[in-house]
């Protein structure tokens, strides 16, 4: 079974703090994604990566950055957390290049509260 794990289920941070959210997948997938999920807005793509050290902006990259130094790990960074970044953050991974590739596998999510 594909497994995507996220470093924390719940996180509380203060405004202005630097926040790291970590995601690890164990299926050797090329693609990894970070989404935020807010009520009534569904999932919105923040950043994605299709290879080590490669990244592309999603729909809402402002206030976030990412790092992918190893294939299995994709980190989301909030340089200076703000209250409007309080949300559920979901990581996902997918294979690349085959028809089964389009299925994304999700982690359990990190609920981040910024006070």
């Amino acid at each position: 079974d594909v497994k995507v794990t996220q470093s924390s289920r719940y996180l509380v941070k203060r405004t202005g703090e630097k926040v790291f959210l970590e995601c690890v997948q164990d299926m050797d997938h090329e693609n990894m994604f970070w989404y935020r999920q807010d009520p009534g807005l569904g999932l919105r793509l923040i950043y994605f990566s299709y290879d080590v050290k490669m990244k592309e902006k999603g729909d809402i990259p402002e206030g976030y950055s990412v790092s992918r130094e190893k294939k299995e790990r994709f980190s989301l960074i909030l340089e200076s957390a703000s209250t409007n970044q309080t949300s559920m953050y979901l990581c996902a991974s997918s294979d690349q290049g085959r028809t089964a590739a389009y299925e994304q596998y999700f982690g359990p999510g990190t609920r981040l509260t910024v006070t």
Partner: protein
Amino acid sequence: AQSVTQLDSQVPVFEEAPVELRCNYSSSVSVYLFWYVQYPNQGLQLLLKYLSGSTLVKGINGFEAEFNKSQTSFHLRKPSVHISDTAEYFCAVSEGGGNKLTFGTGTQLKVEL
């Protein structure tokens, strides 16, 4: 650009009744379509997907969906729901075979006794 519309934010239904969750998409090219389910306090799990071939797709837990190209729809159905189907359901589209998915805003299915 692709977009996905889930018109119903909440759908209440009694146990053992049939249910349909609606999904419409807009895209100018060929698409792949997905339904995901999210149980409380969990990540998303794939229910079913349409990539090509038969327009009626069967998924896990007795769900099925039908791809209708002329109506640009991919509605999810189950003939008889169970309490355990209470969850949020998301429709998603991948345009032109790309690796990115665009998600709808979700439909909360609440199954009552």
